[in-house]
């Protein structure tokens, strides 16, 4: 996970994605697809809710991995996009416009707009300033949501129905919704993989290593990063749309800054820059949260030090660990 110090190679991102066979991801998706079967065979149905939620966060983590892992830009305001997506969805459902085909363009458009405006400002800076600015912009949206008194303000907004697709209540059935989320996750993984392997993705990755050299080669680094930032924001907005539908509730807490920190941790936990790592990281994170919060209400006292120890003592995240154990070799 090297972004500032060139001495440590970024392990997961080092392999050229074009040559990667997405074996791990395919196995992972297959296992996920079998989960409803396991539930029907007696696994507690709590798992279905938990994994659906984990996959929604996996979509957000995946989108963050595009700019953080591949682009090398540590955005600490990514939860804002999830929140914008969730709020746009919640407000439209409340206003009686619950059709997903109406909501989605609004969600994607708003996230693209917010990413374009804040990205244009924050991408003018590097490193630590970028972290601080994305954090501040994220907080700005958080306060904006708190001030939306017509839509619940600080208390959040309870939704009384889920979105419909072409008028059908596809999202109402829990298993149906599970497969919708899985489908979106697979699609996002595929899209981001294609982007990463494309010429655009190569330039983005090259700019992480040495922006000046890429600029001298004739590429407009700022513009490429901005496009990546916008794509990433739109995909995160998509996860917000799903999150609002799953929880039937939206609240400013969705975009509070610890949420952004958790998304970063999911990406790092899985292994920066390897896309399936972000998915594994999100799943592991939500399982850990579920188990620990079942043990004690003070679970963060355990979880916080776990993050610290993880950062201090591991490199390359879970995917790096798996690679050391010989699982999921790419080359």
């Amino acid at each position: 996970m090297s972004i500032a110090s060139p001495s440590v190679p970024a392990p997961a991102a080092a392999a050229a994605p074009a040559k990667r066979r997405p074996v791990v991801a395919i196995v992972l998706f297959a296992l996920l697809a079998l989960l409803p079967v396991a539930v029907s065979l007696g696994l507690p149905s709590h798992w279905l809710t938990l994994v659906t939620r984990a996959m929604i966060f996996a979509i957000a983590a995946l989108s963050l991995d595009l700019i953080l892992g591949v682009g090398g830009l540590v955005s600490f305001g990514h939860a804002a996009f999830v929140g914008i997506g969730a709020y746009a969805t919640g407000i439209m459902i409340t206003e009686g416009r619950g059709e997903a085909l109406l909501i989605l363009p609004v969600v994607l458009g708003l996230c693209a707009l917010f990413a374009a405006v804040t990205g244009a400002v924050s991408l003018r800076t590097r490193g630590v300033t970028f972290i601080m600015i994305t954090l501040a912009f994220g907080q700005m949206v958080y306060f904006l949501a708190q001030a939306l008194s017509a839509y619940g303000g600080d208390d959040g907004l309870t939704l009384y129905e889920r979105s419909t697709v072409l008028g059908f209540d596809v999202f109402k059935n829990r298993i149906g919704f599970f497969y919708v989320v899985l489908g979106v996750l697979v699609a996002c993984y595929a899209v981001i993989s294609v982007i990463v392997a494309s010429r655009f993705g190569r330039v983005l990755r090259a700019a992480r290593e040495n922006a000046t050299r890429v600029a001298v080669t004739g590429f407009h680094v700022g513009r490429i990063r901005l496009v990546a930032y916008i794509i990433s924001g739109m995909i995160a907005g998509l996860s917000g749309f799903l999150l609002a539908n799953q929880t039937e509730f939206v609240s400013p807490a969705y975009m509070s800054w610890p949420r952004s920190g958790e998304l970063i941790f999911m990406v790092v936990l899985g292994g920066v820059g390897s896309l399936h790592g972000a998915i594994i990281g999100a799943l592991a994170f939500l399982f850990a949260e579920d188990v620990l919060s079942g043990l004690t209400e003070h679970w963060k006292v355990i979880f916080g030090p776990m993050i610290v120890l993880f950062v201090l003592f591991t490199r390359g995240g879970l995917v790096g660990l798996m690679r050391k154990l010989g699982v999921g070799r790419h080359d």
Partner: protein
Amino acid sequence: MTTGLLIVQILNGLQLGILLFLVAAGLTLVFGVMDFINLAHGVQYMLGAYLAVTFVSLTGSFVLGLALALAAALVIGLALEFLVFRHLYERDHLDQVLATFGLILLLNQGVKMVWGAAPLSVPVPAFLAGNVALMEGILYPTYRFALIGAGLAVGALLWFVVEKTRTGMLLRAGASNAPMVSALGVDINKLFMIVFAFGTMLAAFAGAMAAPILSVEPGMGDNILILAFVVIVVGGIGSIRGAFVGALIVGLVDTLGRSFMNDLLRLFMSAPSARAAGAALSSMLIYLVMAIVLFVRPEGLLPAKGRA
């Protein structure tokens, strides 16, 4: 909008600015000299406030309690430096952000376990209770004046240390080029420790001084941390002068925006929509200021010398 109200709100803005300066100064120094982004800095502000609650009620004296709280905060800060931060200086910013984020989770929750989730407060010390009459019929609490005065005094002391002493010279040199300072034979680890102790004390002092006027609660450090980031970005990273100017701008803009945005908007809006828009706009105002400053000067208003 009367003149009296305006004066009161300007004083409130100054007071927020002073608190922000104390927090941001430590943060910007630590970042400037050590290239270390410490998200847990806000937690140190919170710890200062909580320790003040405990020690003031134990000793029954505000001054004594403040001194003990500062000492305890310093001990905790140095323990964290020894256990965690020291191992992060050589790491990239992503690792630093994550590890200190983990510490925030731990300490926010830990504070909840030790002191409870309910907001606490520190009584205003007797010798600073009461009000000062600003003008006919307008009173302003003496303690808040004392807070502004104490903050300015600490600011002046900081300026003196940084600009006029040998340690300060090393700090400034470190902020421009830490490897070079090290190469010239200065014990950089000791310098880092001094900088870190400085920053911790400043944040804890701000927290303890804020305890009598703000509610002391878990997470109180997070909001001030993000405001301190805005201050640093506006002022320019690594620059104490920038932190001072940035803190006053953010404090004043935020306070005045929240007080007068409604009235301003009502000039060309109906009352309910002015209230709704005013609430939204005033909470976004400082971020808009930050965006504008960055757009015009990406390096901040008063960047540290020798940094790009």
